[in-house]
């Protein structure tokens, strides 16, 4: 028989057993209650898609084609009234507490009807994920409760993630490139906080957000070791909005320019700085890379990957609808064998992409941002404790530096390197699988629909225009493929290096 050590050795051989069994392992480790949460969010998302998204999606796209400075506040108001901006905020911070593992299912339902509207909700959680990745419990609690208050007062409070700069796209999102890149958003330490100057671009929903989670750098030449994460509120002196980008698609979800000119950020709004992370077990640069992995893994697997699934599904549904009514040579397309094969290929693309995103999401659930909250006793304790009791306890606890210290110990120090590799690798894999499936299915649908597909009023051409952005933001698919190599493949070859000048 096989000895324990031999078994361990065999299972660690590539592909590593843990890497190929995310969902299987999650079945045992994750709370069962998440399944019912998923049912809830899919049902509410479908209702919202029917009542709000479908009737207005094409009109919003057209409206912004005509007037690209238009801001879709009415949609944001509706999403806020439906409670969507607090849906995935944990109950300990005053939110509705739906598990982040279910956000992908939610996003898919809305984005399969309109990617831009899916983004108008989803991007808020991208900002929120960045906030969580700081593990600054005081800031997380404070901003979470502002979002909750915004829901109650009907004044939406959204969060944005601000990272990309005019001369730094890839450079701003990968710690390997920061020190040789062209980063320009400078943070100067001043009495009582930081003063930041620089510009951020392509910030999704910037103009619509109240808080902006901004990466800035105290030393632009050594940015990887000198990154600060700051929360800047709209209206702060020295902070202004620039242009909104004229995009090909996802027009409802605006892309903003954020301009900082000696903008003072008080110490209380600093989420992460070196003084806070220099006592952790990893180096400051490694911790910054770990924060990136936390952000990108969840936002790629549970976010943009599922947006890709949604676009692939939207294209499939358009093609199916067209084939069901269109006759060619006297026979409905749907009853022609070649068309059935084509539709089946599209369906398979959706299913395979969704499976990849589900695997990535489960990896994150076990080893990523929500790992602590998904430990079964903690999960059920938080779920069944009355909200007022949770508020009373956590509002006080989160004020104490001890909480930030504790969560950073748990989330940074206790996360193993192989777990970082797994979540980050699977995040990239899911993102590429989902978004490539989106473009593939859009091409297939348009080839099937011909002239009908070219018309805006049929909705299919919009899906293609919208979907193309998915292959670009949150790291181009090219960069994400290299990240898959770095995180999941390179370790099997000692001589392999990734994201290095030697790769030219």
């Amino acid at each position: 028989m096989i000895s324990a050590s031999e078994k361990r050795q065999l299972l660690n051989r590539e592909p590593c057993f843990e890497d190929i069994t995310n969902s299987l392992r999650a079945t045992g480790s994750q709370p069962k209650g998440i399944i019912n949460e998923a049912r809830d969010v899919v049902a509410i998302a479908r209702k919202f898609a029917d009542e709000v998204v479908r009737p207005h999606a094409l009109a919003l796209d057209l409206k912004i084609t005509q007037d690209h400075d238009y801001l879709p506040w009415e949609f944001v108001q509706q999403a806020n009234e439906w409670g969507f901006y607090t849906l995935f905020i944990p109950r300990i911070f005053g939110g509705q507490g739906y598990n982040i593992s279910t956000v992908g299912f939610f996003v898919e339902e809305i984005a399969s009807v309109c990617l831009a509207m899916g983004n108008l909700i989803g991007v808020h959680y991208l900002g929120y994920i960045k906030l969580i990745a700081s593990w600054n419990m005081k800031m997380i609690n404070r901003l979470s409760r502002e979002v909750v208050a915004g829901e109650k007062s009907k004044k939406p409070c959204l969060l944005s993630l601000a990272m990309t700069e005019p001369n730094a796209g890839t450079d701003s999102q990968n710690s390997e490139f920061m020190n040789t890149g062209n980063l320009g958003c400078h943070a100067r330490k001043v009495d009582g906080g930081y003063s930041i100057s620089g510009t951020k671009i392509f910030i999704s929903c910037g103009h619509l957000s109240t808080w902006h989670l901004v990466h800035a750098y105290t030393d632009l030449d050594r940015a990887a070791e000198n990154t600060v994460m700051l929360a800047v509120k709209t209206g702060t002196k020295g902070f202004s909005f620039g242009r909104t980008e004229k995009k090909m698609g996802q027009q409802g979800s605006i892309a903003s320019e954020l301009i900082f000119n000696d903008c003072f950020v008080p110490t209380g709004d600093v989420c992460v700085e070196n003084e806070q992370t220099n006592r952790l077990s990893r180096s400051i640069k490694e911790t910054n890379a770990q924060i990136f992995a936390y952000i990108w893994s969840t936002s790629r697997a549970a976010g943009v990957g599922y947006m890709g699934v949604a676009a692939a599904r939207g294209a499939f549904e358009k093609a199916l609808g067209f084939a069901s009514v269109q006759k060619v040579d006297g026979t409905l397309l749907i009853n022609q064998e070649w068309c059935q094969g084509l539709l089946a290929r599209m369906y398979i693309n959706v299913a395979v992409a969704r499976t990849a995103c589900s695997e990535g999401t489960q990896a994150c659930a076990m080893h990523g941002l929500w790992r602590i909250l998904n430990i079964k006793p903690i999960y059920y304790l938080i779920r069944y404790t009355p909200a007022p009791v949770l508020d009373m306890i956590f509002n006080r606890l989160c004020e104490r530096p001890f909480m930030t210290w504790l969560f950073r110990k748990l989330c940074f120090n206790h996360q193993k390197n192989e777990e970082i590799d797994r979540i980050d690798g699977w995040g990239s894999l899911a993102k590429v699988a989902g978004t490539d499936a989106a473009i593939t299915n859009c091409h297939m649908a348009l080839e099937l629909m011909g002239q009908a597909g070219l018309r805006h009023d049929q909705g299919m051409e919009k899906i293609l225009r919208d979907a193309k952005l998915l292959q670009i933001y949150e790291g181009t698919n090219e960069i994400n493929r290299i990240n898959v190599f770095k995180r999941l493949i390179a370790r099997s070859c000692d001589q392999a290096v990734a994201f290095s000048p030697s790769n030219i």
Partner: protein
Amino acid sequence: MITNNDKELKLLDRTAREFARKELAVGREENDRFPHGPFFGSVLEKAFDLDFFHSILPEAHGGIGQGISSLCILLENICREDASLGGIMLTNSVAHELFFASNASELLGTIIEDGNGAEAFLIAAPVFNDPSSQTPLVTAYKTGDGYQLKGRQDYLVLGGIAGHAIVPGVVDGVDGISFFLVDLKEKGVKISEPVESLGLHACPGVDLVLENARAILVGEEGTGKACFEKMVSKLSVAGAAMALGIMKGAFKEAVDYTQKRSQGGRPIIDWSEMRMILANMAITIKTSEMIVSRACQAMENNESGWEACARAGAIQVHDMACNLTTDGIQVMGGVGYMKDFGQEKRFRDAKHIQSMFGITPMKKLKYLENIL
């Protein structure tokens, strides 16, 4: 395109490229705003004055009477910068060829010789479908001195700009398709606002509703399908030339950008992954150029099977253009997706023109049917 050292073609190549660079590249973003911005009528007139609409038109009709290569060279160069003008040129050629295929050149002569400037010269046509697959078609009823048409024709390209249109229909009681010439100012002709579309914004289509509108039969009743196929065989390669031009424009903009943009401390053109994408683009373009040039040569030499050469080549080149323009955006990242640059338009236009003459799967099946 390969000009085989033909002096006339070389001159045409230079003239068209210079025109595209000077007249089209500058106003591309603004022109593409149509119908939410002005129509580029003055550019259209300049192209008309340069005889870009007359290259393959027989001399008897005031044209230059050159071969298909000349049209392809023009379209390729125009579409490097803005495929909308190429779309207008091609639509007009589609209409002309339908007349010629129907042996109705005299009727065509009465239209274009009456013309006064580009817009009066243009004839609208439904370019993005195959009328034999279209249901329902316009119905034609015989009257004393001609025909009256009833029904609708969706996405009639140039319908809001041209003076006349050629429209497929079915004569009541007669099998098969026929083509009709419709004066778009006639009573009973209703034209929608320009249809919002994926690409070719400045080559707009409209939905046409005909309520007992007077029309003239083009050719003979029931012969429209054969005429359409004849036209497609000839002009498929012109559509492919448009795709080739779009690809060349995308490649040039991609290379220019990657030489200027740096990430990770080095120009992104030095990243080997980027070089691989650009290499694949370059190879695709060279392959497409060979396909288009060879198809033109086969047609001009009247080689046996030139129709198959043109049709198969066109299907392939359109497919390659759709993939290449995706990469054209990808190499530029976020800015490639923005309207300030040309790549997003090329991506849309390449996909748009792939549907020329019908849906791609049926074009493939028809190709097989033709060669079996």
